[in-house]
């Protein structure tokens, strides 16, 4: 393995990729916001020419999004990606496409990554074609060369084949050939072996290493499989919920894991020795919802080494209480449940959680019982105060610390257990980089959108009626329309607009707190819209043929 040079080829600075969540279809229509998912959240990473960097993490950790952002496939919300000094965000669409000659990608599922309607020759050659190589014979020479490089020989046997005629390993070789044919310097490999048979995996990895040697490639290797990363990577970045939690040389990460998440991932690697039963204290639960990540350190709810300052909050309290109830009998549960009341409101993340419905004293007793069962839970240390509020108590949590990446030995770790080594000021500042997300704004009653929707909806529903009342009257009185009108089109359009507005009011009216009267207004507007639509379309049916003298007027009566 060639030792990587120190020359940076890709420089990622504070990169964030946020996705807006989509609500219902009409929420999208009127452009309302349903929150964002921070798929990648402030990542700094430098790729040096010739090295292999592994991005490791569970599903939803943002590793694939980071890889896609490197090619400009996922738009960066903030921050910059510099490739050989050019910022990807500054490039126009055309220039960005041209740049993809230099940064290529290999996909997880080779069967899906190839167009089923293209032969191998077309698929591989298309990478050249889109970059302006018009001559088919020139392309063919290059394609044959690339296919030989990835070990598909005799090449003639594969050129005319469709993806469905190939095995998974062969398809992945074709995908690799397509990636290297434009002569890239960086290759993003998104779990390139996870969909392949075990027997083929090592071969493909070896092929990738060979290609790296021959063509001087730099790899970004995305995987959830630490074992293959150990074999393949020079450096490893462990990702969790869109952030890098630990990054460093592969040997150091494996020999001396620091972040609790890294330790957990390493423990999760299957051990081939059946006699050795290591305690597998794996992380609890699932990866949290990326739309509203936990306060403080995002890993703290699952962490085995969590401390009182990790950012405890209402959702952790709910998980704790519900965990407590799983160990109670049905009667005990019923009793305790009646003291505590409903816990659903705790899902709205906040550092001040109010629980209890049967009285403050009872709730305190209940909390003490929960605490007595698991006194060592760090969440207890994270509670600042418990105050009596009405018929319950308000549990005030300590403001959590969101750790930034800090140097610890040879690696960098984002964990409060590894306080900053070099510069204290900087780290303290970066702690304040991301304050805990504020609780969702609760706007009561009316907002501007609601009023706007109502006005627009009513106008759209009523205006065609008013504007064409004369024509309608004429139609009713004489049975025949004498003047040609476009009432139908206006009526239909107005009806549709009004219905849209009404529906939006019905589903989204009145802001966050949806008052029932906005629903009523929505229903009225939507009904008016339907009426207007029917009115408009029925006139279209009745009127249009009457415009021509070919049909006798009995038709129109």
């Amino acid at each position, binding site marked *: 393995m060639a030792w990587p040079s120190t020359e940076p080829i890709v420089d990622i600075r504070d990169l964030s990729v946020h996705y807006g969540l989509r609500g219902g279809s009409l929420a999208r229509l009127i452009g309302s916001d349903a929150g964002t998912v921070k798929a990648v959240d402030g990542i700094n990473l430098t790729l040096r020419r010739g090295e292999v960097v592994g991005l490791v993490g569970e599903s939803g950790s943002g590793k694939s999004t980071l890889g896609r952002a490197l090619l400009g496939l996922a738009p960066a919300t903030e921050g910059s990606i510099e490739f050989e000094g050019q910022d990807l965000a500054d490039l126009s669409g055309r220039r960005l496409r041209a740049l993809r000659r230099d940064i290529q990608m290999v996909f997880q599922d080779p069967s899906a990554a190839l167009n089923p*309607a293209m032969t191998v020759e077309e698929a591989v050659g298309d990478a050249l074609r889109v970059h302006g190589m018009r001559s088919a014979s020139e392309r063919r020479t290059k394609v044959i060369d690339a296919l030989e490089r990835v070990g598909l020989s005799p090449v003639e046997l594969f050129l005319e084949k469709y993806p469905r005629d190939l095995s998974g390993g062969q398809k992945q070789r074709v995908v690799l050939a397509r990636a290297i044919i434009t002569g890239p310097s960086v290759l993003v490999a998104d779990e390139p072996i996870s969909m392949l048979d075990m027997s083929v995996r090592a071969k493909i990895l070896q092929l990738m290493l060979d290609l790296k040697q021959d063509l001087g490639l730099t790899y970004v290797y995305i995987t959830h499989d630490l074992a293959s990363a150990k074999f393949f990577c020079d450096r490893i970045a462990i990702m969790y919920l869109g952030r890098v939690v630990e990054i460093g040389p592969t040997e150091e990460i494996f020999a001396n894991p620091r972040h609790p998440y890294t330790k957990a991932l390493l423990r999760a690697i299957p051990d081939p020795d059946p006699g050795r039963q290591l305690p597998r204290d794996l992380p609890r639960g699932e990866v949290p919802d990326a739309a509203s990540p936990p306060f403080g350190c995002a890993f703290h709810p699952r962490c085995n080494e969590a401390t009182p300052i990790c950012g405890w909050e209402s959702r952790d309290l709910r998980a704790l209480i519900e965990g407590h109830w799983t160990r109670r009998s049905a009667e005990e549960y019923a009793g305790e449940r009646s003291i505590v009341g409903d816990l659903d409101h705790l899902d709205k993340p906040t550092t001040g959680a109010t629980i209890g419905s049967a009285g403050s004293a009872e709730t305190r007793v209940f909390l003490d019982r929960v605490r007595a069962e698991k006194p060592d839970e760090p969440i207890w240390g994270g509670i600042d105060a418990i105050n009596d509020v009405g018929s319950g108590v308000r549990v005030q949590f300590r403001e959590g610390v969101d750790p930034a990446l800090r140097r610890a030995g040879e690696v960098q770790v984002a964990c409060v257990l590894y306080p900053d080594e070099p510069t204290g000021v900087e780290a303290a500042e970066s702690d304040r980089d991301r304050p805990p997300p504020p609780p969702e704004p609760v706007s009561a009653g009316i907002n501007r959108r609601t009023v706007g929707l109502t006005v627009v909806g009513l106008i759209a529903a009523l205006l065609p009626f008013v504007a064409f009342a004369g024509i309608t009257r004429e139609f009713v009185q004489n049975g025949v329309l004498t003047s040609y009108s476009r009432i139908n089109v206006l009526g239909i359009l107005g009806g*549709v607009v009004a219905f849209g507005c009404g529906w939006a009011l019905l589903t989204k009216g009145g802001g966050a707190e949806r008052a029932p009267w906005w629903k009523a207004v929505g229903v009225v507007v939507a009904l008016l819209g339907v009426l207007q639509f029917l009115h408009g379309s029925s006139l279209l049916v009745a009127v249009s043929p009457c415009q021509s003298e070919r049909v006798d007027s009995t038709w129109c009566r």
Partner: protein
Amino acid sequence: MRKVLRAMAKPFTDTTGTARWMLVAGIVITAIFVICAIFAPLLAPYGFAQASAEGVRFPKAGPPSGDHLFGTDRLFFDVFSRTIWGARTAIQVVLLSILICVVVGVPLGLVSGYYGGWFDRILLLVMDALFAFPSFLLAIVFSFLLTDILGGSVLAVALSLSAIYIPQYYRVVRNTTVSAKEATYVEAARAIGASDFVIMRRYLFQNVVQSVPVIGTLNAADAILTLAGLGFLGLGIQSTDAAEWGHDLNRALEDAGSGVWWTGLYPGLAIVLLVTGLTLVGEGLNETINPTLRVRRLLPVHMPAREER
């Protein structure tokens, strides 16, 4: 070239049983009409608006005879000739309208499905509105509007037929595009630097037009009926412009009471046959292309005889 031929023969070679025979029967029937349409001037003994030959006037509503195989109608026209010329009109109109449908509907569907957003939503609304209308009524309205502009020509009727079928092509192509554009190979195409146009043309197009031939043939059958219906109402092509079965049926209506059966029977029979033929082709194609209906033909495996040693 061989690839194209093989692809074209695929519906036939891939099918078995009923689907295959439906396809064959449909193709044969349709082919007969297509031949009639192409060679109408040679096959038909007289012109479609010819009322006399060599100075001799044809009999009025004359029964089938040696000179006039299917008889003549009240306007002295030869029914046999008009039936054959009618095939030409029908095929012309249907081909033209399908061409317009494909040329307009498929790219619209591709672009709308690929880009999504406002354009997609508005187009979808318009198309759904057209789709929701009773199609025949829509055809009547359009032929009214268009005959004022273009006259009672083949083009006008073809356009009004297209207007009612475009939403189907649009819908099918748009929906398959919406699902196909999420496929990894589209992302892969983007990753190699393909532009949106290239992605739509080289990556999506071939994968989303698969069901267009089926809709095309099934619509063709429907279009024949709509065309005849328009002609029957006197809205389509006038009898002096071209021979049109529906229009002939309309005129034959008065004959039916007076025992003149031949003026109505033959055009009607032609309509029924052509519609049946096209429907059979469409259904046959559907069974081959639609994977949920397809029963693939199993080819027997012939093992070479074991060599005795």
